[in-house]
């Protein structure tokens, strides 16, 4: 099967990835400004290639959904954007990943600063076994925010941003692990937001949550549009359709994950240009 991801990604400027409402608000996602540029990226673990030759531009202020069956390298793509692949022994990256024009793979790059700028949310909520307050404060302190007043303000703002403030304002010093799953996931998002990132990577952030908590988190993600560049891996196609401006469809060809189609979310779902995409989004395969 022929794969022409490069041409599909370039044809996108002609279609409109935003709504009329966005335009009225002068939203950032109306003007396609590349924030993350990925070119010919391949990721391998222990010499086994899991993701091959991916090229796509992720635009500033937009939500980009990565969809496709399990094991086709979506999470690997996500982890290579903040170099979390470094943590996996035997992982190798090839190709170009530029964020704001800066080469992510540059050996001189300060990975800690990169990861502060590119936050990540995981599938299973992973608040630290600390109090709610210290979950947000501790990373801030480690990044040099020491002033009491500023810490306090940042904690409050972050919790307000994720709609958790009213629920936890009276028990900031209780263990974060006593929160419900959905609250924990929102705390993790607050923890990332407190570091003032430009990009948020989300790896199936709702899949471990119950339907109601899932809706709350989804609405939160939707509200992040325009302020942050969001890249979200999801298996929930309806969710991708609801929140994303752009969608990228991945598929396994011969045990190697490849980007099949990338484009405006609506056009990818409604008029996919590739047979595989059409089969997947209509539920025939996958």
């Amino acid at each position, binding site marked *: 099967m022929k794969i022409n991801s490069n041409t599909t990604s370039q044809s996108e400027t002609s279609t409109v990835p935003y709504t009329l409402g966005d335009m009225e608000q002068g939203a950032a996602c109306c003007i396609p400004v590349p924030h993350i540029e990925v070119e010919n990226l391949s990721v391998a673990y222990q010499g086994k290639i899991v993701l091959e030759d991916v090229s796509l531009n992720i635009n500033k202020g937009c939500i980009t959904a990565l969809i496709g069956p399990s094991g086709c390298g979506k999470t690997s793509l996500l982890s290579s954007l903040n170099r979390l692949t470094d*943590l996996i022994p035997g992982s190798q990256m090839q190709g170009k990943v530029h964020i704001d024009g800066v080469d992510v793979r540059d050996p001189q790059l300060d990975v*800690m600063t990169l990861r502060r700028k590119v936050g990540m949310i*995981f599938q299973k909520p992973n608040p*630290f076994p*600390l*109090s709610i307050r210290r979950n947000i404060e501790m990373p801030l302190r*480690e990044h040099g925010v020491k002033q009491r007043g500023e810490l306090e303000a940042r904690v409050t703002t972050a919790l307000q941003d994720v709609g958790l403030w009213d629920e936890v304002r009276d028990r900031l010093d209780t263990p974060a692990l006593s929160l419900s799953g959905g609250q924990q996931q929102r705390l993790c998002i607050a*923890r*990332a937001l407190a570091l003032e990132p430009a990009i948020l990577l989300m790896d199936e952030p709702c899949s471990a949550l119950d339907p109601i908590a899932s809706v709350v988190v989804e609405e939160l993600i939707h509200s992040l549009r325009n302020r942050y560049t969001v890249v979200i891996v999801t298996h929930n196609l309806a969710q991708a359709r609801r929140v994303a401006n752009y969608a990228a469809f991945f598929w396994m060809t011969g045990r190697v994950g490849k980007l099949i189609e990338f484009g405006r979310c609506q056009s990818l779902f409604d008029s996919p240009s590739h047979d595989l995409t059409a089969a997947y989004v209509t539920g025939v395969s996958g």
Partner: protein
Amino acid sequence: MFKQPARYSDVMLTLLVWLATLLVVGLFAWLVGDLILHGYSKLNLAFLLDVPQNAGREGGIAPILVSTLLILAVALLATLPLGLATAVYLSEYTNGALANGIRMSLNILAGVPSIVFGLFGNALFCIWLGMGFSIWSGGLTLACMMLPLFISTTESGLSAVTNEWRHGAAALGLSHTAALWQVLLPAASPAITAGLMLSIGRALAETAALIFTSGYVDRMPTSLSDSGRALSVHIYDLSMNVTGGDASAYGSALVLIITLMVISGIAVGLTNRFLSQRITPS
């Protein structure tokens, strides 16, 4: 109609489990009861504050208690930093042939009889390093015995900490050091506490290794370079070499058990305070 059939195997198993438990608890109660019964009369303030007289038959155990605590302090001061660092190295920094080699040698070391450690300590600390029979030598020899135990419990505690926190910490741009101090070690603190208690227990119970290293002089030590008699050595001496020393031996044994409980309590309290305060601040 739905009468439950008698399940003899279940009844037997329940009985067996109860009997086994009763036996273990009973043995322990007998031991402690015997100690209290025979040692209670000796247990008073004078016994704790006096020097031993007439080879320990009369008088108290003040210098012995002080020596024991000093030896334990030296041992802990050596074990804690070295043990923590090694455990962190094994669980966080290495994964391969070297780590497996270290783990294997630790397991073997943990099973080495204490008399061998005593001879080793005597050769290394007393003779080769010129420390002689001293509290230094005794404490450091004990540290050699405690390290394998402490390292393996701490390491398994750290390895049990979920990778989600490691990845979460890295994704927030935390340094390795910050992740370790703020998240991983506090999360592993129950295991570290357990390892510490086991190590302290092993140290306080040790006799053979100390006879060869810290000696059995029962004078009050004036410095860490002095020889000092540990409680366990004192008990051994009173019951084996001193006729008519049984009462004092019982008293000393009771003091040893109480000391063990108090020190373990303090150690648990301190570790929890130091490590878990990060988990639930007051």
